[in-house]
């Protein structure tokens, strides 16, 4: 199990690096999609099927939108920074990340044993209080329904903004 996880993480990191480094945009989008799908597999192996399903479908839609957008537009090749500056910047960022994780990861709680005790209440009383066998749904639509309301308002308003930008221009200028 740990071996499989390690392999998956290596594949995820490799495909993420490929997504950044590949010159061809279509290939980069596919590498990004592979990264997302392997993250979905990791969610599934960590016994979070709800999250895995959402990850898979959202990844598919994102990949579809990216591929359609890439095939329907033209672009000119952009001038990139010299390799040496990018390498130095990359090393600095990785050093900062490793430094922080060295100090922070020992402070984190162990995986699967959260600090807050409210989750135990959901696990114990969730089915009788909400009637939902799936605890994720009972949290999403009962205990934390306000959060869901906020999420769908965000989605609604962002699509509203997109349709304001992309709407058909009124006839006769203006």
């Amino acid at each position: 199990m740990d071996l499989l996880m390690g392999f998956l993480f290596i594949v995820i990191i490799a495909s993420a690096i490929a997504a950044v480094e590949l010159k061809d945009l279509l290939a980069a989008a596919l590498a990004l999609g592979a990264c997302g799908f392997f993250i979905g597999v990791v969610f599934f192996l960590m016994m979070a099927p709800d999250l895995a399903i959402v990850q898979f479908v959202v990844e598919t839609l994102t990949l579809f939108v990216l591929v359609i957008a890439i095939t329907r537009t033209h672009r000119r090749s952009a001038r990139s920074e010299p390799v040496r500056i990018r390498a130095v910047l990359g090393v600095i960022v990785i050093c900062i990340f490793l430094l922080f994780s060295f100090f922070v990861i020992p402070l984190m709680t162990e995986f699967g044993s959260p600090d807050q005790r409210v989750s135990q209440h959901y696990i114990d009383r969730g089915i009788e209080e909400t009637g939902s066998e799936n605890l994720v749904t009972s949290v999403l639509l009962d205990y934390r329904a306000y959060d869901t309301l906020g999420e769908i308002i965000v989605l609604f308003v962002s699509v509203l903004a997109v349709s304001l930008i992309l709407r058909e221009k009124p006839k006769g200028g203006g």
Partner: protein
Amino acid sequence: MSLIMRTVSRVLIPFIFVYAIWLILTGHTSPGGAFAGGVTVSLAIALSYVSFGVPLTKERFRYSTVHVGRILGMLGFLVIGATAMVLGKGFLGNFLPKIGGHFTMAGVIIVLSLCIGILVGCEFSLLLYYLFGGEEG
């Protein structure tokens, strides 16, 4: 697109819709949920766009239908929340009886899932609509 693509899509799209409805309506008993179901609806429409072409798909899933759908989803969610408040359970409280049975065991949760499913499906379908060239193309 090619004949193979069209034939396969004609068979596949109804099944994707059924899967999406299953995800939305059984989110309270099995993995899935309204958001995943809604995105799956828009994925079926995306497949229709690439296999049947843009004009036919835009005729099937009209701009006005999608727009009415997302407003209905949003209004439905708010109205159910307000109804619970009127009945004295607090905003978005669970006011329906939780009797046994597959669909009615979670009370108001399934109605809220339906609203969110419609809303999310219509939102992403609208995005696809704009991706494929707005209101005329």
